[in-house]
């Protein structure tokens, strides 16, 4: 069971966008931004509030890559594997992060909920490939060494 505060916050977000079917995606985006994932209970709640079926809400949420029903880490690291980054060797950066954090293609988030590592198809900073993004900040010209140094720095910050 989610705490009452989750529903209050969701009510606020729904009020902002309006109780309409078309508001589903922006509402889910804001809820996810708030909690770093989309709790299933809230999805059902949103569906009811904006007058759509739960199945419809679920079908939309699962269609888009950005929505996650699993909680993400404090630092969400998106390693760019767009064409420009790929040809400038983004794969070793990803592999170094996986190795350091004990993650893999299947396991995205560390057990201590500090880091989530994902790949993304393009961050739009291709001139500085390979790039990665930690939360909303883009880091340029990555190497496995720089990625590991950044992890150490973030760990230090807690």
């Amino acid at each position, binding site marked *: 069971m989610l705490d009452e505060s989750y529903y209050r916050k969701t009510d606020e977000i729904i009020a902002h966008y309006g109780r309409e079917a078309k508001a589903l995606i922006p509402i889910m985006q804001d809820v996810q931004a708030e909690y770093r994932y989309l709790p299933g209970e809230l999805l059902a709640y949103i569906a009811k509030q904006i007058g759509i079926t739960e199945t419809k809400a679920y079908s939309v949420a699962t269609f888009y890559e950005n929505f996650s029903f699993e909680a993400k880490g404090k630092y969400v690291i998106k390693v760019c594997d767009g064409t*420009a980054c790929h*040809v*400038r060797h983004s794969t070793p950066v990803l592999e170094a992060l996986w190795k350091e954090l004990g993650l893999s293609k299947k396991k995205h988030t560390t057990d201590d909920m500090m880091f989530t590592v994902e790949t993304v198809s393009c961050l*739009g900073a*291709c*001139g*500085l490939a390979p790039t990665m993004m930690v939360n909303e900040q*883009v880091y340029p010209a990555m190497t496995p060494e720089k990625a590991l140094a950044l992890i150490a720095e973030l760990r230090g910050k807690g």
Partner: protein
Amino acid sequence: MIQNIEDLSREREKAVAELNGYDCRVLVCSGTGCIATGSDKIHKLLEDLIADNPEIDLVFAPHDDHDRPNIGVKKTGCQGFCELGPLVRIQKGDKMVQYVKVQPEDCKEIYEKTILGGDVIERLLYHKGEKKYVGPEEIPFIAKQTRIVLENCGKLDAESLDEYLASGGFKALEKAMFQMDRDQVIEEIDKSGLRGRGGGGFPAGRKWKQVARQKDPIRYVVCNGDEGDPGAFMDGSVMEGDPFKLIEGMMIAGYAVRSSDGYIYVRAEYPMSVTRLRHAIALLEERGLLGDNILGSDFSFHLHINRGAGAFVCGEGSALTASIEGNRGMPRVKPPRTVEKGLWERPTVLNNVETYANVPKIILQGADWYRSIGTAGSPGTKTFSLTGAIENTGLIEVPMGSTLREIIFDIGGGLKNGATFKAVQIGGPSGGCLTEQHLDEPLDFDSVKKFNAIVGSGGMVVMDEHTCMVEVARFFMSFTQRESCGKCVPCREGTKRMLEILEKIVNGQGELEDLDKLEELATMVKTMALCGLGKSAPLPVISTLSTFRDEYIEHIVDKKCRAKVCTALRKYVINPDFCKGCGKCARNCPVNAISGKVKNPYHIDPTVCIKCGACKENCAFDAIYVEA
């Protein structure tokens, strides 16, 4: 509040006076690229240095009091030279200095020497060999471009409506609304030959005409800012660098087709674009340029922003509108076309960012002027993002019909580290590869199609001899397969089977008949997929198969990857001349593939080796190398 054209003229005059009132403008590039290299820190440092000096006015809006110098520190759109960021330009009167790779420790010197003193710091200038370049316009990378869409990027404060007004912003809207009727506006766009810059190249004027002709009184204007092609960032740069221009273009479209609501669909990975657009819309609403009865007329226009949620297919028109409606972003069968039944089943003008950004200039300077740039079939310019194994990566704009040689070698400065040009991938996952033999072909919508490629949205990834073309085809196929929405069978199943075959080949398990299967599947998906994205998904395979068939055959028959990219085909070898026989490699090998006697050269058994590279990584004498 700007309530009529007199107000607008007055505000513009005021803005011009303000812009001219600066003694010095410090233009810090605040595109996504430069912010990633730390330009926001530079902006803050320079602002603080100026604010700390009581003798100077750090002005956000300058004034007439000229006892003390007026200095403005601005955040501009992408200055283009992303590789050399953070970029800073210092403008005094009509003199401009371009600094590259500015670091926090340079700020004090810039402030003292250039901003206060007017001297140039040579160390921070762009240089090529011995030659140093002071002004941005002198740098070949910039001098050889023709900037229409990107004209304001790097010159104006991307967050200031006044600077946009001062540079002639909203003159085109004014002209469209008060000196032309709606049909004339559409006619002018049609005559200009402006073609959709999102990839399809469909004439924009024809779209507008079709929407205007519909009986339904409710129409929508939608902007496709879902720039999903990996390796493309032109539209993102326009949205974050010159949001007002995009909005003005959309408003002109709205006026022309009698629409009162516009939507901009921005992809999720562009938070900066969303921020700048929201800021721009809020400013315009506050000043009365967006909303009801614009400039005292009966034209009302409201603009909304929708953020994408990470689905490449939403770049397709009908999928994009479905997503705005709150549905799964899946394309639908056409007809009816978007111009007849688009967003909420209403007639909809759907163009991409760059297309709209061309509109104001066409209205202001006329269709004939526009047609004087580019080629007869593809007038105007095209922005490209230049990336990959090239010396100058960045954002460029050139006339349609420029050759690849001009783009890659004259503007891009050739290959990085003196590597050999192998191919350039254009048009993203829907595009193809062009090679040496295409270097002198003029690049426009129609010419490129002949070579199994498309101009697409304008991503251009340069590849050198270290790129394996089979692996590139696999890379794109894994992208399109992952992004296939799953609605139609040819794309859902076809891309999956094609990917399996490509994976087999890069893993060294390919057979020659796989190439025939690949071709058959490619033709099937190309002809039968439901939407444009599915239809173009096999293009990277078709294009590499026709141009680099020998590389496919090498992978299959010789089990060899000449670029040494495909891991499974690598062969690790110990060079006996360098090997000291320390045995470290043998101890590191996880599968005991390495044997030998201490102090004698060791040997790797290729039948046991799993190509993990642990031996090479740990060799103190660089005695282990990869054989193609």
